[in-house]
Structure formats: C-alpha cells, structure tokens
C-alpha cells in the first residue's frame, strides 16, 4: 500500500465516521460540528485528488458560510439544544431499504468497471487547473450557460431573502 492510499483510507473513515455522528448525535450543535468535520474530510479528499481549488472553496463555502449559518439558525430557533425525542421514526425501514438498494446497485455497477484498479495518468507539468477551470466557466463552448443560470438562481434567492425579511412600514 502506498502512502497516498493509507492517507485516503484514514480520511475516508474519518469522513464517514463524522457523517455517521451527524445523524446519530442527540445534540444539534454537536451535529453541526460533526457536519463541519465531514465537510473538512471531503475537502481533504479534494486535495488528495490534486483539486486544490475545490478543496479551498469547500472550506470557504461550506465551513465558512453554510455551517456557520447552520449553527446560527439552530441557536436562534431552539430553546433547548438537545433533541428529546427518539432518533428514529416508524419509516426507518424504508430509509434503510433505499440506502441498502442504492449501495447494492452501485456496488453491482462498479464491480464491472475497470476504472477502480487503474492508476490515474500523471498531470502534465505546467498544467494550471485553476486557469483551465476559470476559462471553462466563461467560455461559450463550455460552461458559461450553467454558470450564468446558477448566478441568476443565486440572485433570485437573494431577492427572495430580502423580500421575506423586509419590514414594510
């Protein structure tokens, strides 16, 4: 086993373990903190895949903005931080069935795929991933339309938030 594989396994177990803690812990703020550690694990996996830009964006957007907003929302809406009720409801078996069948389906699909045992081809020297990504996002032959649509969606969300919070005199 190479060092990279060991690091990947450690990070993957850390991420999955944190993800499990998010849904099993009874304390809502702890769940948010475990979510942060899950997201951080995903950022490390991005970094292992030589996607430094995505790793840093993951930290900025998910930890710096979304997770902090989660914690704010939990603190501002809840009197008691602890969830007293049971962790499961009556439909737990449906969720378990869907999860198991998705896992089984993915397992079945990926078993026949030879990409798992191949090693990735080396990144050519002088390849600037950030530059390529930036060019692709504004190039008409690539992703300019999805990029602009996503921007419009975000503006709509912003306008909606302002409308909801606006206090008419």
């Amino acid at each position, binding site marked *: 086993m190479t*060092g990279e594989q060991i690091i990947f396994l450690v990070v993957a177990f850390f991420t999955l373990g944190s993800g499990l803690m998010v849904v099993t812990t009874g304390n809502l*703020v*702890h769940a948010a*903190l475990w979510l*942060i550690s899950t997201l951080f694990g995903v950022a490390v996996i991005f970094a292992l895949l030589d996607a*430094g*830009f995505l790793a*840093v*964006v993951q*930290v*900025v957007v998910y*930890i*710096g*903005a979304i*997770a*902090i907003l989660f*914690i*704010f929302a939990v*603190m501002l809406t809840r009197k008691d931080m602890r969830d007293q009720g049971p962790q499961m409801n009556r439909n737990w078996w449906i969720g378990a069935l869907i999860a198991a069948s998705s896992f089984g389906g993915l397992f079945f699909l990926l078993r026949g795929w030879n990409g798992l045992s191949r090693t990735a081809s080396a990144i050519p020297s002088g390849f*600037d991933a*950030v530059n390529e990504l930036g060019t692709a996002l504004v190039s008409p032959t690539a992703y300019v339309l999805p990029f602009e649509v996503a921007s419009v969606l975000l503006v709509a969300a912003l306008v909606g938030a302002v409308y909801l919070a606006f206090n008419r005199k």
Partner: protein
Amino acid sequence: MSFWNDPLKTAADWLLGILTGWGMSEIAAQVLIGFLGVLLLLALLMVLDIFLVWVERKVVSRFQDRIGPNRVGPFGLIQPFADIIKLLIKEDITPTGADRVVYNLAPLLSMMSVLILWAIVPLAPTILNVDLNIGALYLIAAGAIGTLSIIMAGWSSNNKYALIGAFRQVAVMVSFEIPMLTVLLIPTIFAGSMGMNAITQGQEDVWYVFISPLAALIFLIAAIAELGRAPFDMGEAESELVAGYNIEYSGMKFGMFYAGELLHAFTYGGFWAILFFGGYRFFGLEQVSPFLAVAVVLFKAMVGYWIIMWIKYTLLRIRIDHMLAFNWKFLTPLAFTLLMVVAFMNALLADVSSWLYIPGMFLSNVVLAWVALEIARVSSRKAREKVEGAKQVAEAHH
C-alpha cells in the same frame, strides 16, 4: 556559498544526505525533513509571538502616555516570559455545564487558523514555504476556521455574555469576509495569479498600492474587522460583555486566544505588505541575500501591524448596527464597484505603456473613492434630516 543563497534547499539536501546515509528510505527522509521544516517555522513564529506581546504592550502604553512594562529585564523585555509562567501555573477552570471537548478545542483552532496562514507566506525568492496557486482563497479559508473557533468558544462556555460576544464577532467576521475576498481579487487581476509569490513577483515595477490605493485601504479595514480589533471590537466590548467570547477561559487557554490575536494582527500586516507593498521586494535588497529578504518582509509586516495598533488605540468602538450597515451598505458595494472598475481599466489600458497605466489606474481609484464618499455624505445628510425633522415634530407636539 550556496547556503547563503538558498538556505532551505541546501539544509534540506544536507539532511537528506545524512538521513539516507543512515539507511532511511528517501521518501521517509523527505517526509521527516518536511515535518522538521514546519516545526522550525512554527517554533520561530511562536517565539516571535512572545515578543509581540511585549511590542503590543509597549506601543499601547506610548499611545496612552505611559511607559509600559519596564521592570523585568532591560526595557521590560522579559515581561512576556513572566506572563507566560503566570498563565501556565494558573488554575485551569472549566465552567459548569461547559461542553468540555468543544471548549478545549476552540483555543487550539483559533491558534491553528493563524499558524496555517504562514504556510503560504513567501519570505524570500527562495524561501516560499508552499507556493499555492490559490493563495488568496486560502487566506479566506483559514479565516473561516478562525470564525468557527470563535463560535465554538462562545457556545461551549455556557455563558450568555460569551455567546452574545461570539454572535457579534461572527456576524462581523462573516460580513467583512465579502469585501476582503472581493479586494483580494484586485492584486489577482494585476498579477494574473492568486499565488502570493506571483503577486510579489508582479510588483517588480511598482507596488500595487500605487495602482490601487483604494483596494489597499479596503483590505486594511476588512482585515481589522476580521481581527475583531477596535474600532470593530464589538465582540469583546468590555463595558457591556466583560470580555466577549473568551470570558470563561483562563490560564494558557486564554493565552492561546490572546497570542493568536496578536499573531493574527501581525500576519494580516504581513499579507497587507505582500499584496500591496511588494512583499520581500525592497529596491533589489531581496537579490542580495534571502536573509535580507526575510528581514524586509518581517519589517513590512511589523509596519502593517503598527498601523493596525495605531488605529486600534486611537479610534472609538463603533456600534454593532453601524458596523454592519457600514459593511453592507458602503464597503461591500464599493469593493464590488472597485473590482469592476479595476477589471475594466485593466482591459482598457492593457496595451499602453506603464507611464500611462499607473496614473490611469491611480486616478480611477481616487475618482471612485471620491464618488463613493460623496454618495455616502448625501445619503447620511438625508438620514440626519429625517431624524432631526422627526425630532422637531415631536418637540412641537409637546
């Protein structure tokens, strides 16, 4: 001679030779050398941090017409060591009902968020630490971890003042992140890269502060707000919140927050210097020796730190709603407009000589600043007239 030109690489090669000579595999030796390098950098930073306590106390006492620490050692230089011993032997108190793990993790994260920033600081042309091509974003990402540490400290202390302080501080930090990130894109436009070394190299002809003084100013304001220092120190407003998010911390855990804040201020001074004042460049001094380059960048960081202290100990605290309104209604739109103006002017003046480019850029910045101040003046006068008009009506009724 090669040690004096490229000290880190020479030392690493020398160590690699020794370690592989002992029968260690090359990869293991390189990992070990990497760890040693990180350890060396962190150790130097922590020692520097101890003296920053002394610098901060000496400077604030001059601003307040006092002498400051002057009893222990020459000029009170040994005072910080006495403070550290005091902090270490203090009783370590965890408040009742505190969330123990989160409570203990918060000071560590606070210190970490500052120390990881130094991974991308280019200290000399040959001492780059990590030359990350997304340095500007990394700066914001490290700030996000700092924000997290504050909310963790405030929540886990089980103290309402700590929680209010954390809420205020985090609201300020999350808000001022936006103009800071926007302004960080301006050196990126000039240098064509987000990497800190590329930005330093890009300032060969002229420092970016002369091309975009407004961006340098906005970065400084946003940095001070990120630091939570006066006039933006609403998070620890001692007259109402006692000490803010770190109220329940004692001993070395408080020391971590305090030392982290000082080092953070120094680090932001350094980033201000790297982004707008040429980093390790100073009239070709960096070509003479890498040690001189390190001295230059540390000196510039110290000047930036001094300016941050100067502002802190001169200005009054701003009310929280004014602070957020200032950010959302003035600084953020101004930063966005500045980014657009700079990008437009950069494209427009792309082909002209630098004798036209630099004044053109400078003038567009000055004009934009003037227009923004004029708009702010008119709208604030209107708001004042509204308030005074309402007052007169109310007085007439009495």
